[in-house]
C-alpha cells in the first residue's frame, strides 16, 4: 500500500560503491537494465514466485533480521516488495535512489540463507529473488564497495584476497615447514597428479587463517590420505562474484577451480570448512557452466571428517572436555543436509554437546553469509544488531552449559565472532577442525 519506507537510519549508511555507483545512473539506463535482466535472464520462476505470493507475511519469522528488528521492511517478502515488486510494477521506471536502496536491501539485509523458503507455504525462493535484484544492481554498477572489491580481486587473481600466485605457494610451503616441526615427515603435496583428494580452501585461509591449512595437513597426514593442493590459480573455492550478481565471473572462477582438479586428475575435491564456497561449487557455479552436478565430486570438510571417523582413519587421543554447541551453517545444512554428520563428528570428538534451538535446517543464520559480511564495516552494525535472534539463541545454549561454539563455516565464524563480542556472550568460537586437531592422534598414518 504505502511506498517503501526509506528509514533515516538506512539513509545514513554511506557506502562508496552505492553512493558513487548511482551518480552516473540515468532513468533510461535503469529502465533498460531492469527490463533487460527481467526479460533476458529470468522467466517462469520469477513470474510464478511473484504471482503466487499471497502477501501472507508467514515468512517474516523465518528471517533473523525481522525477528531482531521487528520491522516489516526486514521480512523476506517485505524485501521483495521494496525491490522487485516495485520494479515490476513500475516496469523498471525507478529512481537511482531506489536502486541504491534496492542494492542495500538485497546485499546487506538478506543473507540468502533460504530459511524463509522453509517458512513460505509455497516454497517461494526469496534468496533467488534477492539474487536477481543483486544481478540488476551489478549490471547498474551499484554494489557495496567492499564486496565489489572482493569481486575485483576474484577477477584479477582468481582468489578473494588479492593473494598473488607466489604468495599462495609460499604460504603452503611455510605451513608445511611449520607442521614439520610437529610431524617431521608431513607433506603438503603441491600439484601432485592423480591424487585421490584435491584439497581447496578459501582466500582468507592463506591470508589470515593459515593455521587451518596446517591443521588440514595434519589431519590428511594422520588419515593417510593421498592428497594434493594446486600451485596454480583455482586453489580458491570461494566466490563473492556469485553474491555480487556477476554470474559471468562466478562461472569463470568455478571453471578455474574445477579445471585445476581435473588437470591434476584428482578423484574428488575436498574443501575446508566454508559454506558459501560449497554453495558456489555444488549448486550455483556449476549450474552456470552447464554442469548439472559438480563434474568432480565435492566433499565438504564435515562430510570428510565424518568419513574419516566412520572408517576409523582418524582417532581421538582425548575428547574435548569443554561443553560445546554447534551452529548449523545454512549452505551446508539447508544446502547439503550435513547436520547429522556434523553431530556425529562432534560427538566423536567432544565430551558434551549442547543443542541450540532452533537447530539443523531451522537454525538461524549467522547474518554474515550471503556476502553480507563482505560488504564490510559500513554495514557491520546493522548486521550484528540485525541478529539479536542469534544472540538470544546462543545465550540460551550458554545458559544450558555450552562454553564453546563450533561454527564449521568461515562466514559464520566471522559473523558469530562479532555477535559474541557485541552481545558479550563470552563463548569460545572454534572450527570443527580446530577441535579435531587439538584432540586427535597425530602423525600415525603418514606414508610417502
Amino acid at each position: 500500500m504505502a511506498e517503501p519506507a526509506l528509514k533515516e537510519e538506512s539513509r545514513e549508511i554511506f557506502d562508496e560503491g552505492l553512493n558513487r555507483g548511482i551518480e552516473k545512473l540515468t532513468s533510461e539506463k535503469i529502465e533498460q537494465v531492469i527490463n533487460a535482466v527481467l526479460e533476458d535472464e529470468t522467466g517462469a520462476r520469477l513470474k510464478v514466485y511473484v504471482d503466487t505470493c499471497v502477501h501472507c507475511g508467514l515468512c517474516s519469522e523465518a528471517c533473523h533480521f525481522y525477528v531482531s528488528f521487528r520491522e516489516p521492511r526486514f521480512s523476506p517478502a517485505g524485501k521483495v516488495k521494496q525491490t522487485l515488486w516495485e520494479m515490476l510494477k513500475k516496469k523498471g521506471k525507478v529512481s537511482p535512489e531506489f536502486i541504491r536502496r534496492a542494492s542495500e536491501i538485497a546485499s546487506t539485509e538478506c543473507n540468502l540463507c533460504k530459511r524463509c523458503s522453509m517458512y513460505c507455504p509455497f516454497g517461494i525462493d526469496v534468496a533467488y529473488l534477492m539474487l536477481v535484484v543483486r544481478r540488476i544492481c551489478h549490471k547498474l554498477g551499484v554494489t557495496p564497495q567492499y564486496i565489489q572489491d572482493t569481486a575485483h580481486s576474484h577477477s584479477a587473481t582468481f582468489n578473494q584476497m588479492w593473494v598473488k600466485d607466489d604468495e599462495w605457494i609460499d604460504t603452503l610451503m611455510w605451513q608445511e615447514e611449520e607442521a614439520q616441526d610437529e610431524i617431521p615427515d608431513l607433506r603438503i603435496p603441491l600439484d601432485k597428479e592423480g591424487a585421490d583428494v584435491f584439497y581447496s580452501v578459501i582466500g582468507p585461509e592463506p591470508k589470515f587463517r593459515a593455521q587451518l591449512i596446517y591443521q588440514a595437513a595434519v589431519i590428511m597426514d594422520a588419515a593417510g590420505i593421498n592428497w594434493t593442493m594446486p600451485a596454480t590459480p583455482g586453489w580458491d573455492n570461494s566466490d563473492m562474484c556469485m553474491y555480487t550478481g556477476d554470474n559471468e565471473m562466478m562461472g569463470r572462477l568455478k571453471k578455474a577451480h574445477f579445471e585445476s582438479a581435473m588437470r591434476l586428475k584428482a578423484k574428488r575435491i575436498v574443501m575446508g570448512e566454508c559454506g558459501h564456497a560449497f554453495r558456489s561449487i555444488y549448486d550455483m557455479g556449476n549450474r552456470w557452466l552447464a554442469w548439472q552436478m559438480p563434474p568432480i565430486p565435492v566433499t565438504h570438510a564435515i562430510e570428510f571428517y565424518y568419513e574419516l571417523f566412520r572408517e576409523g582413519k582418524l582417532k581421538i587421543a582425548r575428547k574435548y572436555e569443554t561443553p560445546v554447541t554447534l551452529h548449523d551453517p545454512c549452505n551446508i545444512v539447508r544446502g547439503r543436509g550435513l547436520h547429522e554428520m556434523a553431530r556425529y563428528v562432534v560427538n566423536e570428538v567432544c565430551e558434551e554437546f549442547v543443542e541450540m534451538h532452533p537447530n539443523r535446517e531451522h537454525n538461524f543464520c549467522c547474518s554474515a553469509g550471503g556476502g553480507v559480511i563482505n560488504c564490510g564495516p559500513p554495514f557491520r552494525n546493522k548486521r550484528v544488531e540485525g541478529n539479536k535472534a542469534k544472540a538470544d539463541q546462543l545465550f540460551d545454549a550458554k545458559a544450558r552449559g555450552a562454553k564453546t561454539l563450533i561454527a564449521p563455516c568461515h562466514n559464520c565464524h566471522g559473523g558469530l565472532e562479532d555477535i559474541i563480542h557485541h552481545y558479550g556472550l563470552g563463548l569460545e568460537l572454534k572450527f570443527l577442525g580446530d577441535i579435531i586437531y587439538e584432540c586427535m592422534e597425530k602423525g600415525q598414518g603418514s606414508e610417502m
Partner: protein
Amino acid sequence: MHDSSNWDWDIGKKQIADIGKWKDMFEWVEEPCASPDGEKVAAVVKTGDMEFSVCQNGAAWENTFDKVWHLRFSPDNRLAGLVSDMGEWTVAVDEQAWESRFEFVWNPQFSRDGSGITVAAQKERKYFGVINDVPWEKGFFHITNLATSLDGKQTAAAIQTVPFSEGEIFKFQEGCYSVAVNGKTWDRNFINVWDMAFSHDHEHVAAEVRTSLYDYTIAVDGVPWNETFLSVWKPRFSPEDGSVTAPVRIGGKWTLARNGKQIWNSSFAQLWHHIYSPDGKKLAAIVAPEFGKWTVAVDDIPWRHTFGDLAADPVFSPDGKRVACVGKEKEKWTVCVNGEPWNSMSDMAWKPVFSPDSKHVAAKVEKNGHYTIIMDGQALKNDFEAVWDPVFSPDGEKILIRGIEGKGDDAKYCREVLSLKK
C-alpha cells in the same frame, strides 16, 4: 614435438630403476616422474635436515637444496625442478641451477620441443617472466596466466599496469591490467586479462579481456575485437591463416566466433577448449548441447553420444580425421573416439594419445587403485602401480609403456616397447 626417432625402439622390456629401494636411501621420496623416452625416472628426495635433492635412476644429484618442487621432465628428456638455494629460488635443469635468482619462481613451462623453459618469477615485489634463465627486463606489480609460445622463446602474461589500493573499485573499473609479451606491455589497459594464446609463428598474442565489468572480448596484440560478448573463453590462432577463434557467449548461449564474427551456427549451453586439427582446417570443441549433457562438436556438429558428468581433454588425430576425448558418466570415466565411447570404464582416464599414423588411440587409466594403458578400447598390459602416458613410435608401429610394477620395496620402474603389428 621432440624427435623421438633416435630413442630405443627395440621391442622388449628394460628395468631402469629399483625404485622400491630408494626409500632406504633417503629420508623420504616424493612421487616419481619418468622421462618421455622412458630411460629416466626421478623424484624429489630428502637427504637430510632441511636438505633436499633429486634422485634420478637411483643416483642423487650432487647438489642439495633447501627445497625442491615441481620436478618434471621436458619433452627432450631433461629433468627440471624449481629449487631454493640458500633462500633464493631458481630452476635447476639436469643438476645445473640457472644463474638468475629470485625470491620465488613458479609455473614452469616447456616449449614443444623442450628446448625452452619458462617460469614466472618474483624479486623485490616485482614480477617477471623468465625464458631460459633470462628474465624480462622490466618487472610488474603482478603477473598471472604466464603463457609460452610453442618455440619457448616468447612468454606473455597478464600484468597489472596501474597501481591501486584495495577498495579502489572505481579505479579498478577504469582498467589497470594489460598483457606483457617478453616484458613489453600492450598499449591498452583492460579491466581484466586472462588466458592467452600465441600464434603458430610465435609473433602474435591473443587474450581474453574484459573491457567493462560486463563486456568481454578477445584482444589480439592489444587490439580488441569490435564485438563484445557476455563472456568468452580462451582464444586460439588458426594454424592455417593466423585468424583468431574463441568461444563466445551470446544471449545466454555459447558459440564459436572468428575475429569477432560468429562462425558456428549452433549455440550450446557450453562450449570451450576448442582445438584445431593439425592442418588448421577443422575445429572441435567440448560442448554441452543442452544443460548437463557433454560431448564434442566437430565443425559445428555435436556427437550424438553425450556424457552426464563431463567431457574433457579433446585431441585431434594427426591426420585430422578423428577426435578423442575423455568422458565421465555416473562417476565412471572412459575414452570416446569420434562419438564412440569405449566399453571399458575406469575410475580415472587421462588425455588420449593418437599414434602418428592416426591409427591408434591409447590412454592411461586407473581402475581400483591400479593403472594401465588402454589402446583402442582394450587393456594393453597388466596393471601397474604407476604408469605414464603411452608414447607411440614415429612410424606408429610400436608403443612405449613406462610404468612401475610391484609395491613398496619391490617397486621397479621399467620401460617396455611393444609391437603393434599383428
